[in-house]
């Protein structure tokens, strides 16, 4: 038996029938982590004792004939910005080094109740701020498909762990693409649910109006199974929605006849070669395409040809199965990037004010309190976090609020209205998840260059919509390509159904990353 690449359904079935014990599954997962993670670096903390205890409890329950949950015996990893009782949680930051939370996040409580086994905490860009996991204060995580490349981010450790078969599923958080983009880079499924679908209680806050927790898995059915467990209202999160939770698992009918797939032309606009190279040391090409509404720029940094081809094959596969494509327009797409990078840092600057060296986390002593705050934060935060706190403080400062934060929030309304209009003509929106495949370590040197890689994933968070990445092919160089589907609020069932069809038509099948150790 090779449980490391089993699906959730297979794992649960084998545990329930007793063909394998939870203890055996956990021992296998821990061995694999020990063997592979020296190279991959997906985990910040592996909870061997905790995992074995959970497994023993499951085996006891089974022997006693007690009810078993829908994720029984499934090894799950958690992004290290989800708090875990008695298990170190750092959010990838030195300011929380060694912090042991006194409680579990709601999603963790729900996973445990369903019988999932928490094997450890995964690496991330500090506080979720990054797109490559290079901004972790602790370690580098390598892409299992090519160790010279990043796994994406910020949930890079969660994506790499699932991709390499070190666990069956993981949770990540997605503020601007942090689940979908690493899922695309690592060739797995990543789902960002509708804002409010999943409780954020116990998620280390980055940008509270954008953050959402979601699953990273190897199959669409597994994503549905995890969402089924973590979705739902939580009285501890005032933004969580009271809407009933439908059956996501039953949504996977394998059919797309008559489904209307919106193709937003703004996402596919060809890059204008004449725009020229970098300007004045900005480190990015600010005007790569035709002007839109006099904005003077488009968001599109140019889709790599192999990505474009894979997306076109995906669209063709869907239409062959009876889906209908609809050209749609999301005219304010170009504004998503600047709006996001005002809203997210503004909210982050407020959220991160709690790390001041007083109540928990790192402290750098000083003779006065103000100096203690400043020294602690100066020493505890990394460069990207400092940059965003400064940017956010600037945007929220007296006299600038209307010009930046309020303006950006108004632009969110425009972006949301674009989607509302588009969804009158289509059921899902299809785009590439990323303009290109996983890049080399150190390839994105300027902050803006890194931010531009997020152009396709940001609007989903700004509008609060659900979004999913599904693998849809590999490049000739052997790197995975992902397609993104965006849905109406709370319409995760249609996203999952469409994703399931893409998976069976153009997915990766049994293809595994070479970095999975060939075992």
């Amino acid at each position, binding site marked *: 038996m090779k449980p490391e690449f089993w699906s959730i359904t297979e794992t649960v079935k084998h545990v329930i029938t007793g063909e394998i014990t939870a203890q055996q599954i956990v021992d296998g997962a821990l061995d694999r982590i020990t063997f592979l993670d020296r190279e991959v670096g997906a985990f910040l903390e592996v909870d061997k004792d905790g995992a074995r205890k959970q497994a023993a409890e499951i085996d006891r329950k089974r022997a006693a004939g007690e009810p078993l949950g829908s994720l029984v015996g499934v090894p799950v990893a958690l992004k290290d910005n989800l708090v875990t009782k008695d298990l170190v949680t750092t959010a990838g930051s030195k300011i929380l080094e060694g912090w042991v939370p006194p409680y579990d996040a709601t999603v963790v409580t729900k996973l445990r109740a369903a019988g999932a086994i928490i094997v450890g905490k995964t690496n991330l860009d500090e506080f979720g701020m990054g797109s490559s996991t290079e901004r972790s204060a602790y370690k580098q995580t390598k892409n299992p498909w090519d160790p010279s490349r990043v796994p994406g981010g910020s949930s890079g450790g969660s994506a790499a762990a699932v991709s390499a078969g070190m666990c069956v599923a993981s949770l990540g958080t997605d503020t601007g693409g942090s689940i979908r983009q690493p899922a695309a880079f690592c060739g797995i499924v990543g789902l960002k649910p509708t804002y409010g679908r999943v409780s954020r209680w116990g998620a280390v806050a980055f940008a509270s109006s954008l953050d959402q927790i979601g699953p990273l898995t190897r199959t669409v059915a597994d994503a549905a199974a995890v969402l089924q467990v973590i979705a739902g209202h939580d009285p501890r999160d005032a933004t969580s929605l009271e809407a009933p939770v439908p059956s996501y698992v039953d949504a996977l009918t394998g059919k797309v006849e008559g489904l209307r797939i919106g193709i937003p032309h703004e996402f596919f606009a060809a890059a204008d070669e004449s725009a020229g190279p970098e300007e004045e040391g900005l480190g990015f090409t600010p005007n790569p395409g035709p002007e839109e509404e006099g904005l003077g720029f488009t968001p599109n940094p140019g889709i790599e040809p192999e990505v474009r081809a894979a997306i076109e094959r995906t669209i063709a596969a869907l239409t062959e199965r009876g889906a209908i494509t609809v050209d749609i327009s999301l005219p304010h797409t170009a504004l998503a990037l600047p709006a996001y990078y005002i809203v997210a840092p503004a909210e982050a600057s407020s959220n991160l004010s709690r790390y001041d060296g007083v*109540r928990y986390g790192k402290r750098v002593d000083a003779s006065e309190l*103000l100096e203690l705050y400043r020294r602690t934060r100066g020493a505890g935060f990394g460069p990207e976090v400092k940059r965003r706190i400064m940017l956010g403080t600037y945007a929220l400062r007296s006299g600038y609020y209307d010009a930046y934060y*309020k303006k950006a929030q*108004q632009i969110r309304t425009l972006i949301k209205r674009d989607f509302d209009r588009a969804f009158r003509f289509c059921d899902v929106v299809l785009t590439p998840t990323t303009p290109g495949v996983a890049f080399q370590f150190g390839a994105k040197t300027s902050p*803006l260059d890194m931010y531009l890689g997020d152009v396709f994933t940001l609007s989903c968070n700004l509008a609060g919509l659900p979004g999913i990445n599904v693998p849809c092919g590999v490049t000739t160089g052997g790197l995975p390509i992902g397609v993104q589907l965006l849905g109406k609020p709370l319409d995760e069932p249609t996203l999952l159904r469409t994703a399931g069809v893409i998976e069976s038509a153009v997915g990766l099948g049994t293809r595994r990353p070479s970095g999975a150790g060939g075992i």
Partner: protein
Amino acid sequence: MAELTRKEVEELALLARLHLEPDELDRIGSELGTILAYFGTIAAVDTTDVPPMTHAVPVDLALRADDPAPSLPVAEALRGAPKRDGDLIVVPAIIPGSES
């Protein structure tokens, strides 16, 4: 949006409660100038009569019943405090020159 002056960057760092070394002040100052220049493009967008979006999905103001329930025990809540005196957290002087 022009480049931020060194003084502006220092003021911002104080507002953000961040101690930044001189090289960080230089680097962040120049990076912020670039990023803000790019983000300044949103100023040209007409948002007359467009309400700001406060939340992605409309939710009623969530009020719950005022039912007392157990919360985190004090000892647990204080477990991560860097410096304690019994159930109190110790900090240095709040007003410069006074005693801690």
